[in-house]
């Protein structure tokens, strides 16, 4: 039973990490119907920026917690800036183009950013310091869940709640929902659609950056390629939950995290990814629009 619980928590941690990245995918998809292939790269840039800030500040001898917070802040700012710029360059001119063109543009962007970091920084794995301290009050539970995992879970939960509140109640959230439903109609009632799309990219990138910092300090290393794999996993999670739906992205990520965790724990780690994908295919066969996605009947 303890083993089960351990796997459960492991899956939960993994799932919350996927969720932070999947949120960006699903929000962007909900509004512009674009698979933002370069989203994983934004996450990678967030992690790299944080690493650079951390290294500089560590050499200056700052306090650990302060470093962590500043690094996360800078990473969020930079990732958002990258997300914003990326949308302006690679997607905005393509709003009216065939959807596949935008996908190829996203792939181009992804390749560009990967190689940009590769050339400007390094192709090696860089060690990422684990900055999250071990809390004292966590000691009795340390054999079940470590402090870093706890921090990840709590951060993810806070981000989810804030995001939900924002989308439900704030003005920009309302504008986002309107744009997602019908872009032309939203424009007619005075929503600044370009701004809404920019904000969506900024928020998605910011959550990805938070994910990037947390994961990097959890795993302990980064390189220019981490964004691609994480991006694919998060994309799978977003689709699993029903792409375009925010609770769906969270649920999908948790389901994916648990699937991987239990499968690795009980059966075999070799086929972990195979099983995750088979599970995805099975769910989509029975629920073609994802777990929480509404399958809209098409009007003719």
């Amino acid at each position: 039973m303890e083993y089960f619980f351990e796997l459960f928590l492991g899956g939960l941690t993994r799932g919350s990490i996927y969720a932070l990245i999947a949120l960006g995918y699903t929000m962007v998809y909900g509004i512009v119907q674009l698979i933002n292939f370069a989203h994983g790269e934004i996450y990678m840039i967030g992690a790299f920026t944080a690493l650079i800030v951390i290294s500089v500040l560590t050499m200056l001898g700052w306090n650990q917690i302060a470093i962590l917070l500043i690094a996360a802040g800078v990473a969020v700012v930079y990732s958002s800036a990258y997300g914003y710029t990326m949308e302006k360059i690679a997607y905005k001119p393509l709003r009216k183009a065939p959807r596949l063109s935008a996908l190829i543009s996203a792939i181009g962007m992804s390749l560009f950013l990967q190689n940009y970091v590769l050339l400007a920084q390094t192709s090696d794995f860089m060690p990422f310091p684990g900055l999250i301290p071990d809390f004292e009050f966590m000691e009795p539970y340390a054999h079940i869940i470590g402090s870093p995992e706890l921090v990840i879970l709590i951060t993810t939960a806070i981000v989810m709640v804030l995001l939900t509140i924002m989308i439900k109640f704030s003005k920009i959230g309302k504008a986002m929902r309107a744009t997602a439903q019908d872009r032309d109609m939203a424009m007619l009632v005075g929503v600044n659609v370009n701004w809404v799309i920019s904000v969506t990219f900024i928020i998605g990138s910011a959550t990805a950056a938070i994910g990037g910092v947390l994961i990097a300090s959890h795993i302990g290393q980064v390189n220019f390629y981490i964004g691609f794999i994480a991006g694919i996993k998060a994309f799978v999670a977003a689709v699993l939950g029903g792409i375009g739906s925010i609770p769906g992205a969270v649920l999908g990520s948790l389901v994916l995290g648990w699937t991987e965790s239990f499968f690795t724990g009980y059966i075999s780690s070799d086929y972990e990814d195979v099983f995750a994908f088979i599970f995805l295919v099975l769910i989509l066969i029975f629920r073609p629009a994802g777990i929480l996605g509404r399958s809209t009947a098409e009007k003719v």
Partner: protein
Amino acid sequence: MLVNELKKSLFVSLWFMFLTFPIMVIQVNTVENIIQWRWANLFFVGVGSFVLSALWRYLIRRKEQGIQETEVDGVARVTLSQRLLNNRRFTIPALFVVSILALAFPFVFSLYQTNIMITAMIYVLLGLGLNIVVGVAGLLDLGYAAFYCVGAYSYALLNYHFGFGFWSVLGIGAGLAALFGIILGFPVLRLRGDYLAIVTLGFGEIIRLIMENWNAFSFGPSGIANIPRPGFFGVEMNIEQVTIYVYFLMIGMSLFTIFVVNRLQDSRIGRAWIALREDEVACQAMGIDKRKTKLMAFALGATWAGFAGVIFAAKTTFINPASFTLWESINILCVVVLGGMGSIVGVIVGAFVLILLPEYLRFLSEYRILAFGAVLVVMMVFRPGGIVETVRRTYQYKETA
């Protein structure tokens, strides 16, 4: 006006200097704990983005003007490539020159160049096959490399275990790939758009991961070596001769593919695919069997990947799962979209551009993939329809006075 433009460019350049600051300027050496400040990079970024942003805005403005003109005239502009393709006085001599070049190529250029051309033609095959699924039938497939993998492994394994020859496996490999296409096709019949994309992606990864992990069956990540090259009635050939032989084999194969795909597009099933792409509901209302049509698209698309896979295995004599990753699928998709979805000439041009460009960009050495990514973005922004846009068949109704 000019001041305004300069101001905009200056703003963009400042923005990019801010944006690239941590990654371009600071480099941390964690082993020796030294920080390198590379201020020169900041200068390059500033100047570069200043010039590029001016150029970018100019090009965007030109593009928008073009769109406006089209809207005013009500006539779609016919691009240069389309005009050339429709002009027989151009196409026939061009075809003549291309075929002479193609025939002379391996005798004029080196073995290395010939090998690149063979690779490019393998991508022509793959591109045309994927074009059936994505371009003609409109089903986004992100796992196409799986069928390529099936083709390659069927040759490698059948040859290893049972000693099958190249020619007999060429058919079997294509058949097996088609079978896998149908296996993939069944579960995804109900899915649309991006759900389809993600399931095909998953399928591609499943096939690759199984090949990677099932050591007893596929020899795992180390792959299979010493796959025999294609034979020619038992004649002994040295490497150079075999390469030339494979080159001409590929030319024959490409011609065969072009012929078949061309005929398919105008056949009953081809029209059904196009109808399916344009509107699924209307297409069913017209009495087209959606299930059969989709399965046919998957199966026929996969067949070409099977052919390409077998030839690939025979050409390189060594295969491992690393050749069939998601990037491979994406690469093939880029061939189709960059070249021009649905257009046969476009896909062929796309394949050559995509394979030859990185090859001849080697002088840029490590910058070539960076450049390639940028080219993809720029290409899509300024020509979203691809290099050779397809002309949609239209029937114009002329009123007689």
